[in-house]
């Protein structure tokens, strides 16, 4: 029919490859997206790392009631540099105590019997700390190294600091955010632009399209994780105790699970507003419950089994077990199972519910 054009051999074009390439190109040509995916988690680590690294020894405010012995008591207590001693009259001390501005109040007593009255609150952790420090100073002022029953060792080595606890949590969090936004947003955006409809009018295989979205998400994730682990290793000396292979496997499994959830979130949504709302609905509870910044064991016991079923909890727990405790994956079948279940389950549901047009 026309002159020089000969049908190209079919194997030269792989739709999967072209679709993945298109996604990768769209991503790295969008500086903003690159920042949010790679820059933001780093900023977060830096901010939190700075907040918790050179933190001065915590100051515990304790008030002393003014009077003849006040100066003596103050000097005694100030031997412990963790205590921040202020002297006030009785009324001021009591009002500061009631409003929580001080963790304990010491009132020197005259006459026989106990020499001090110590106000503390057994339900407040800080108050208990204040009580024991105050007691220690007032009752054993002259403990010498020889007569001590306990030898104290301060532990500040990598692996047991807060930053070590934090990094796996942030890693899990960024895998969650990346999976949900990276997959969900992209799809809804394509749907709004009617690009999804246009692609559907070609012989493109739907499965290949979804696979390309998942694969490109995994590609974005690799530098994200490397940057994060490399950065925290260089600046905070965060190390990985367990096997690197186990960690890589976990990261991929986590990324897969959240990409699946992202796909599910995007499967019906027609507007950016609805997909953003859904994502926040899914992510917010996990931000709070899944042990990113603090251990979820602080929640009531009845809630723990449910919290452990959340994908981010399973991922964070597994990441910490590998990175901090050096556990093998074989020791955490349940967590792996939970993650796989979320990933596969949401992928299957997404395929069933997906609104192509």
């Amino acid at each position, binding site marked *: *029919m*026309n002159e020089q*054009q000969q*049908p*190209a051999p*079919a194997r030269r*074009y*792989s*739709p999967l*490859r*072209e*679709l993945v*390439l*298109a996604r990768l*190109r*769209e991503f790295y*040509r*969008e500086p903003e997206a690159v920042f949010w995916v790679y820059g933001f988690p780093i900023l977060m680590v830096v901010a939190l790392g700075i907040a918790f690294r050179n933190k001065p020894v915590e100051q515990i405010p304790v008030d002393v009631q003014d009077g003849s012995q006040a100066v003596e008591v103050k000097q005694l207590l100030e031997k412990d540099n963790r205590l921040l001693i202020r002297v006030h009259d009785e009324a001021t001390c009591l009002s500061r105590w009631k409003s929580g501005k001080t963790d304990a109040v010491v009132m020197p007593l005259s006459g026989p019997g106990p020499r001090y009255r110590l106000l503390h609150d057994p339900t407040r952790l800080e108050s208990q700390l204040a009580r024991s420090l105050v007691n220690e100073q007032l009752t054993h002022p002259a403990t010498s190294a020889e007569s001590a029953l306990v030898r104290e060792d301060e532990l500040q080595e990598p692996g047991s600091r807060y930053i070590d606890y934090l990094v796996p949590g942030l890693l899990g969090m960024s895998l969650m955010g990346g999976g949900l936004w990276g997959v969900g947003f992209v799809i809804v955006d394509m749907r709004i*632009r*009617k*690009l999804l*409809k*246009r*692609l*559907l*009018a*070609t*012989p*493109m295989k739907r499965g290949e399209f979804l696979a390309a979205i998942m694969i490109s998400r995994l590609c974005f994730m690799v530098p994200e994780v490397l940057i994060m682990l490399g950065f925290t290793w260089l600046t905070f000396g965060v190390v990985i105790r367990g096997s690197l292979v186990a960690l890589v496997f976990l990261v991929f499994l986590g990324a897969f699970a959240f990409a699946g959830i992202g796909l599910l979130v995007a499967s019906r949504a027609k507007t950016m507003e609805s997909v953003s709302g859904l994502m926040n609905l899914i992510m917010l509870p996990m931000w709070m419950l899944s042990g990113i910044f603090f251990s979820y064991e602080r929640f009531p016991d009845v809630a723990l089994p449910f919290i452990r079923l959340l994908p981010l909890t399973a991922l964070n727990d597994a990441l910490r077990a590998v990175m901090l405790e050096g556990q093998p994956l074989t020791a955490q079948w349940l967590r792996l199972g939970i993650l796989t279940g979320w990933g596969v389950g949401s992928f299957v549901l997404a395929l069933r519910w997906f609104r192509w*047009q």
Partner: protein
Amino acid sequence: MNAVIHCENLVKTYDGKPPVEAVRGLNLAVLEGECFGLLGPNGAGKTTTIEIIEGLLAPTSGEVAVLGRHWGRGEDDDTIRQRIGISLQETKLSDKLTVRETIRLFRSFYRNGLEPEEALRRVALTEKGDSWVVKLSGGQRQRLAVACALVGDPHLLLLDEPTTGLDPQSRRQLWDIIRDIRTQGRTVLLTTHYMDEAERLCDRVAIVDHGQVIALGSPAELIARLGGEHMIEFTLKDNGAFDPATLNDLPSVQSAQKESGQYRLAVRELHVALPALLGRLQQTGQALSGLVTRHVSLEDVFVALTGRHLRDEESPKS
């Protein structure tokens, strides 16, 4: 000749309150190798019809056969998709991909097709191959959309309003491209609400209104149905009111109408009708305030059939 597209009693009703009957019993047969135009005002059901043919919408009832196959019957879907190329009314292709990358992506979906470079050449975008889509003008984007439709070397091209919103030069450029496709023996179905586009591009035109085909034929045939090739339009001073029907007996006049103060005569031979008209006006003491003559267009056909203009947004009942 074979019908490449065959629609029988096509109905599409969108759910809603009240339900919208976009297509109401539409029949259509597009033949091999022709350029066929669906012409109609906005909301006539053109896009719904073409999307049903493209397999993107399911009809409420009725039959559609494309290239002798039916949507939703096993292997048929892929067979049809491999052999048709489409451009939707609005698609935002990815801004940050280059023209060449976009074409390559679309090429990869088809078993056989053009080299991406060849597709670019046909729509005259070779020089823009490395530009990001976001940098293209409206006309260039539309040509890229057509290239995406062409790259699978389709037997049948379905173009939904390919030139809407383009400047005259870009429109003409696209017309050349579409004519080129047609001369290569491909079948083209396009929708448009520009009658000049339909007249210049299409071998046959179906005029669609309220979800039905109300007239079908080549542009020349449709125009011939009005009975005259020329149109005389005039207005009178003082909005002079006299019955246009009294002009029907003038020589060579085929029909006479009056619409909002303007008289319109369809005439066969201008050199006979015009002097007669002027004589009649003088006799009856009417003074002209304006007079133009022009060739009859599909617009006139549409007006004659529906009493409305093609581009009236709100259709006033005549």
